[in-house]
């Protein structure tokens, strides 16, 4: 096998054992790697009955075939399983430094099942794997734990760590790499916590990566790295980070304000945008392994109520989730809230959105001090968010913390009083900080059909609507009008295939904007030896998309669940998208036709599945 090693670690935590296993080579060609391969592993070996936090539930971490290659954007991996937040299939992607180190140790991924008797870690040193107890680490934050790991196992050790939120099974706990990079979405930190697993540490002795065609890959890698580095987009990301566009986003109505109740707030735009972060607090730029874009921020706030020492800074999603969403234009507060979430191990998008929902509920008296133990939840009150609400969520230490630790959908179910009207979710996952009403109507469609729920990284629809990428070789060479439903179903069908390719190869969506379709194919062939044509590659993307839908079907998801909250569709009352209606039903209907999805069941018919090499899967769902 090339690029991939063909070997994974299978850890049975109840037995305290971890062994090497191999996967059939065909799984790799058919499902690419990363999120796609994780879906196939779950399909074959996972339990559809096990609750997400039960010991029998599988947690699957997978690299793509490019992890270990010294190319910008390649150092990500995917984690997948049944999400404790949504109850159905999901996955999450993380950059940083773990993926290449795992590959250099000789593994494509790790499957975790069972539960350790007492808190422990998995230590991977080349092909030696140990499961070790670390009772004394339980209760520590991510920052302290990561520092301890560095001290004990050396600076070269790379780790995935959970904070107190994961230990306390908060539904949207995340998993952190080096305190800076997160498997943020869908709550896999809680799954790790439910297995009593505090950290996974990997340390390799050499940088081993064996591609199918080294010479061709090397010259393609140089070509692509130059293209990626020179692009204007990359330069802007390098200078001002992922929030570089926040100000522009406010003007088009893409940035959500006060729980998506407003689409325009001019003063906030300048206060929170990436260039302001650069001017005020940036000390360094940082990057995932081998990435020349270096979009990550290192910040320091030396004084004031939200002072923080030099360390990881927020990206766009965190700035908007703890800024505009909460009615605050205090950039320092977003930095501090982001740092705290990283330490506690909380997904900043769901945390910010759930608090925003709670603030609206409090404003409208659906949530009162009786349910919050006297805590008042007022817009822009960042002291309360940082000092009281976030810690209470992570520790589930109060009525309010317990309620909000569930995520907004379940919290709305718990309090009722019409509060579900103010949700901003799809399939139980809080929407990212891109408002379909201003950012692009196609986002409403792709949020709704995404297997994990409202997600902007499941596919590149956001970038396609923005005019940031074109794929002429597969028929996407036309300009989209973000504020209309025209061609959104057609482009979404391509977007879901490309998204599956990106998330299965574990390529960063910022870096791969510069990669053309024929270059993708060459990359797969030179690195992994898949011998693909463009058609083969696109089919693999579609196959992964279908498989993820089949998994969800087995978890009870149907066509009627492909929805977004009313709040994300109701016409905006201000800003550029004011009064514009989203024709969601029309987009969804057309997408279902084009993707050949059954209008009730939400999955493709038997023949479509057989034609794309999912025959055994078809036999299960179409008995």
């Amino acid at each position, binding site marked *: 096998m090339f690029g991939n090693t063909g070997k994974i670690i299978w850890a049975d935590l109840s037995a305290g054992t971890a062994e090497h296993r191999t996967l059939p080579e065909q799984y790799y060609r058919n499902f690419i790697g990363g999120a796609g391969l994780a879906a196939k592993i779950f399909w074959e070996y996972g339990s559809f009955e096990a609750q997400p936090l039960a010991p029998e539930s599988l947690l699957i971490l997978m690299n793509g075939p490019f992890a270990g290659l010294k190319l910008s954007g390649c150092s990500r991996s995917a984690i997948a399983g049944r999400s404790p937040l949504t109850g159905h299939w999901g996955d999450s992607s993380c950059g940083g430094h773990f993926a290449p180190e795992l590959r250099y140790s000789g593994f494509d991924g790790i499957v975790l099942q069972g539960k350790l008797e007492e808190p422990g870690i998995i230590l991977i040193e080349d092909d030696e794997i140990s499961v070790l107890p670390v009772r004394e680490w339980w209760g520590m934050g991510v920052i302290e734990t990561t520092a301890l790991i560095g001290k004990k196992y050396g600076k070269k050790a790379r780790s995935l760590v959970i904070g107190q939120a994961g230990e306390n099974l908060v539904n949207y706990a995340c998993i952190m790499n080096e305190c800076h990079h997160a498997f943020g979405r869908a709550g896999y930190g809680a799954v790790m916590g439910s297995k009593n697993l505090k950290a996974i540490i990997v340390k390799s002795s050499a940088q081993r990566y064996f591609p199918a065609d080294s010479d061709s890959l090397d010259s393609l890698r140089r070509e692509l790295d130059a293209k990626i580095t020179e692009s204007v987009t990359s330069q802007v990301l390098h200078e001002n980070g992922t929030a570089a566009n926040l100000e*522009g986003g406010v003007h088009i109505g893409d940035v959500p304000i006060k729980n998506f109740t407003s689409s325009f707030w001019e003063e906030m735009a300048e206060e929170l945008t990436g260039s302001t972060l650069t001017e005020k607090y940036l000390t360094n730029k940082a990057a995932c392994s081998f990435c020349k874009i270096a979009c990550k921020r290192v910040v320091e706030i030396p004084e004031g109520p939200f002072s923080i020492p030099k360390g990881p800074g927020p990206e766009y999603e965190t700035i908007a989730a703890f800024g505009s969403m909460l009615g605050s234009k205090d950039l320092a507060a977003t930095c501090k809230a982001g740092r705290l979430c990283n330490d506690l191990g909380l997904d900043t998008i769901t945390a910010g959105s759930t608090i925003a929902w709670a603030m609206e509920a409090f404003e409208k008296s659906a949530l009162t001090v009786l349910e919050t133990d006297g805590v008042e939840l007022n817009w822009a009150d960042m002291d309360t968010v940082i000092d009281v609400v976030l810690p209470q969520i992570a520790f589930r230490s109060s009525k309010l913390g317990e309620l909000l630790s569930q995520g907004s959908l379940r919290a709305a179910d718990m309090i009722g009083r019409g509060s579900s009207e103010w949700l901003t979710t799809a399939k139980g996952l809080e929407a990212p900080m891109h408002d379909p009403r201003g950012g692009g109507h196609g986002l409403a469609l792709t949020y709704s059909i995404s297997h994990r729920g409202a997600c902007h990284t499941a596919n590149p629809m956001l970038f396609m609507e923005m005019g940031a990428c074109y794929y002429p070789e597969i028929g996407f060479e036309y300009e989209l009008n973000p504020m209309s439903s025209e061609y959104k179903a057609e482009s979404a069908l391509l977007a879901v295939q490309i998204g599956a390719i990106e998330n299965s190869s574990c390529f960063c969506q910022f870096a791969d904007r510069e990669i053309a379709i024929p270059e993708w194919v060459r990359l797969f062939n030179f690195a992994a030896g898949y011998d693909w044509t463009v058609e083969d590659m696109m089919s693999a993307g579609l196959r992964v998309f279908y498989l993820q839908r089949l998994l969800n079907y087995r978890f009870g998801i149907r066509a009627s669940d492909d929805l977004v909250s009313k709040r994300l569709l109701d016409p905006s009352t201000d800003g550029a998208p004011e009064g514009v209606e989203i024709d969601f039903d029309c987009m969804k209907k057309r997408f279902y036709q084009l993707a050949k999805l059954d209008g009730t069941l939400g999955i493709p018919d038997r023949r479509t599945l057989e034609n794309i090499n999912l025959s055994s899967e078809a036999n299960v769902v179409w008995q």
Partner: protein
Amino acid sequence: MEVSDDGCLSDVIQSINIPVEIRPVFFVNHKRCAFDKKLSDGDEIKIVSLIMGG
């Protein structure tokens, strides 16, 4: 900036020569506008770049 009586947004865009790579979007009096939008005295024009969303 002065534009002729029957001037429209595209005249302004041409005169300031904005690179397409930064994906500019144009607003006249806070409303996103097409290039053929006619301009009147005192109109406020805002140009926003959609270089990348995070």
